[in-house]
């Protein structure tokens, strides 16, 4: 299963730990919405390619 983590803000230690737990045994990718110019085309491709997306606060 492919899982995509979308970060709406810089992840803190708790978020990183949760990401680590839910990603265990899975292929994981990440996308940062809070950093620089957002490539929405790439984001949509990644969302459609993943089996599950989690949008972190």
């Amino acid at each position, binding site marked *: 299963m492919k899982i995509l983590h*979308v970060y*709406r803000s810089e992840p803190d230690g708790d978020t990183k730990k949760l990401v680590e737990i839910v990603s265990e045994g899975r292929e994981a990718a990440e996308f940062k*919405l809070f950093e620089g110019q*957002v490539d*929405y*085309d790439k*984001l*949509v*491709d990644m*969302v*459609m390619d*993943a089996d599950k*997306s989690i*949008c972190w606060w």
Partner: protein
Amino acid sequence: MANSLGIFVTNPDNMQHIMGVTKAAKAKGIKVKVFFTWSGTKLTQDPAWSELVKLADDVSICADSYKKMGFNVEDVPEGLTTEKMATQAQHGDIIENYERYMTL
């Protein structure tokens, strides 16, 4: 539903992301439904709102949240009908029927 994306919006600060994702998805031929709840309903007042309702395939809001944010439910936002002033069942529709799901 194949090739579809549902976007669940709770945050009033993410209109640029909602527009960016919706535009990119529509350019790829993906069906897009956007549902606004809680303080996300404040985005009905955003200057980009009218463009969004034209661009997305389906836009609806939680009427109860809209009221709790201080709006009059009789004031239907531009581009919506009273049927789109709805309940969390619209969120359920995204979860049940759309291929992909995001929260913003």
